[in-house]
């Protein structure tokens, strides 16, 4: 809860926190899925259809769902599986396979890096930056944050509050100033202060607005020009509640920036965040973090195995963790 923000939260194991954050997710998806596994006595068309429905209801989308089910069918044939119950492990494996995070996904943490955080309005960019800043600061990194959302009312005040919470510095100008100029200042400050990680907050923008996407391009150019040898990381933030439009978002942000990862937020709700699977499948962009609350600690590194595990685990398994 936000009210507890200032208080020390007990440190918990990664899996525990993940499971906690995903409890709702897991409960709804797992109960849906396990009911299918148990309600059917044999693997037939009806069974697969029901399975499709469940995945679609988790926002995986028609295409990803079809692909997953096809893949499952093949494996069932190959392995001569007869029991619906056995399908469960296979299904988890095939989803996990698609959610693979590359080995160098977090390389930017070890380099002098500039991290751009982009996305449509209200998805959780500023909050995620606050959380990331807190994490890197705790890792002993020199962190700097750039307030390049100069458009939305009070965006700078909001980010300033987060940098206070995280205990890091901020580079900001006034509302209405040129975001590229803010980034210019921030990049040069990062160079002269020997900052390890520069996090840039940007204004929320819908991906179908040409002029706003051009603005993003311009901001990126400033970084390229001013700090050519920095390590570039560009994270797109997607709201876990979003449906199929998240795919369009990821695609079109990908056209103006080299997206290196995705942050999926608000997975502490009842949304199943299945769009993550669809995106990974269609675009091959790895999910790197998930947001599971409004507290500064509520951002997790994405772990496909534990994610799928948490999605499908029964309550008993969750308690064990």
């Amino acid at each position: 809860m936000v009210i507890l923000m200032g208080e020390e939260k007990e440190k918990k194991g990664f899996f525990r926190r993940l499971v906690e954050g995903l409890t709702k997710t897991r409960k709804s998806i797992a109960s849906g899925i396990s009911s299918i596994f148990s309600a059917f006595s044999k693997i037939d068309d009806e069974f697969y259809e029901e399975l499709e429905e469940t995945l679609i209801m988790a926002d995986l989308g028609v295409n990803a769902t079809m692909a997953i089910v096809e893949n499952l069918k093949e494996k069932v044939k190959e392995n001569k599986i007869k029991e619906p119950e056995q399908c469960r492990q296979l299904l988890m494996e095939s989803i996990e396979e698609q959610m693979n995070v590359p080995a160098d996904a977090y390389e930017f943490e070890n380099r002098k890096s500039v991290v751009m955080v982009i996305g449509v309005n209200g998805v959780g960019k500023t909050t995620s930056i606050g959380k990331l800043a807190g994490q890197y600061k705790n890792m002993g990194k020199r962190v700097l944050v750039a307030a390049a959302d100069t458009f939305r009312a009070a965006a700078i005040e909001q980010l300033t509050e987060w940098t206070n919470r995280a205990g890091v510095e901020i580079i900001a100008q006034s509302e209405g100033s040129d975001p590229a100029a803010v980034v210019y200042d921030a990049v040069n400050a990062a160079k002269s202060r020997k900052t390890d990680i520069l996090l840039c907050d940007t204004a929320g923008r819908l991906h179908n607005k040409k002029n706003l996407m051009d603005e993003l391009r311009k901001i990126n150019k400033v970084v390229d020009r001013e700090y050519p040898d920095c390590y570039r990381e560009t994270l797109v933030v997607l709201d876990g509640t979003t449906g199929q439009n998240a795919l369009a978002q990821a695609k079109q942000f990908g056209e103006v920036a080299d997206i290196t990862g995705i942050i999926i937020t608000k997975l502490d709700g009842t949304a199943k965040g299945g769009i993550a699977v669809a995106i990974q499948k269609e675009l091959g962009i790895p999910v790197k973090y998930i947001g599971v609350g409004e507290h500064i600690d509520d951002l997790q590194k994405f772990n496909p195995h534990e994610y799928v595990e948490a999605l499908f685990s029964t309550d008993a398994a969750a308690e064990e963790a």
Partner: protein
Amino acid sequence: MAFDSLSEKLQNVFRNLRNKGRLTESDVKTAMREVKMALLEADVSFKVVKTFINSVTERAVGQDVLNSLTPSQMVIKIVNEELTKLMGDETTEIVLKPGNEITTIMMCGLQGAGKTTMAAKLAGKFKSKGRKPLLVACDIYRPAAIDQLRINAGKVGVDFFEMGTSHAPVNIVKAALEHAKANNENVVIIDTAGRLHIDEQMMEELITVKEEINIDHTVLTVDSMTGQDAVNVAETFNSKLEITGVILTKLDGDTRGGAALSIKQVTGKPILYIGTGEKLTDVEQFYPDRMASRILGMGDILSLIDKAEQEYDEQKAKELERKIKKSEFDFNDYLDQINSMRNMGGITKILEMLPGMGMGNMKDVDMSSGESALKQAETIINSMTKKERANPDLLNPSRKNRIARGSGVDIADVNRFIKQFNETKRVMKQMSGMMKGGKKRGFRLPFGKM
């Protein structure tokens, strides 16, 4: 585009079946599978899709489609009609109490849905209707939420009330009502913190407000990009807070907005307004039929026509029509057309509303080049003398040279523009000939190619 692909798919389904001679019930089912996929891709809740498909299938099997010469179009027509029916038959707006009696409106919804912005937009809307709104800041959690509302209140020029972050929302609202009484504010709009529907403690906070204060309208604000979870969210907010209506935000994106249908279905509450941009005037009435077309991917042509009618002065339209017929269309008229397009939200907005444009394929169109072409045309015309503007034929090479220098463009640009202008004029004359006797609308796009 979604509509194209749906209608294409349906045509394929029926073409294959045609060859067999007669359409059967199972053929219609095959077609319905395509409709189902289209709706799911638009994020309509799976359960809602299922019920919907069942009722549409029933109607479609009942001869309509089987006997039709163009079964695919018939299916789309039925689907569209049924969808519109589900979306609600009429447009509903927030009804304010008469005179100086205070109407209370409470915003609620998930984090990031757009409540704060929408609260300010509504305040602006009611202010323009001669009301005196008060914006009340009850988001005591999100950093700078109060500042955001204060700034927006200033931008729309309405009164603002806050008590910092250490008072319970119920007490803030009580004090705000006192403030409203003392200052003659008659529409009290309460912005609340975003919250998860499953967060009992946070939901309790709003329940308390409703228990202790008479809230006339409890409005659920929902991001139009919401996926399958929309039903859970809407159902829970509705059962806990008895919402009175729904507002959809961010419809200026390219989402198909299937959540609208799901929410309407599970709550039965009307959708009141839609947010269509970041400007504080970007709030519009909700039209169920237009939403139905959008979900099916048919663009928002009706909204466009409506806007065009609003912006287009009848008198001017007649005069223009006369001029076109007599080939008197000149640069002043051209400039008028540019301005009326701009009032409609610019080319980008117009194109977004056209069928085939809104859904994803806009990314291939460099719309800013259209906008900048307009801007250039405007500068060129502004560099002409009054005489030249009224008499396009006057333009000889030396005049063109002067205009090019004056507007800071190449002579080639001027020539291109004039050529385009003449082409436009010619096409318009042709069109006006074709439209004789037919239904006339004031709205014309004078730009043949963009």
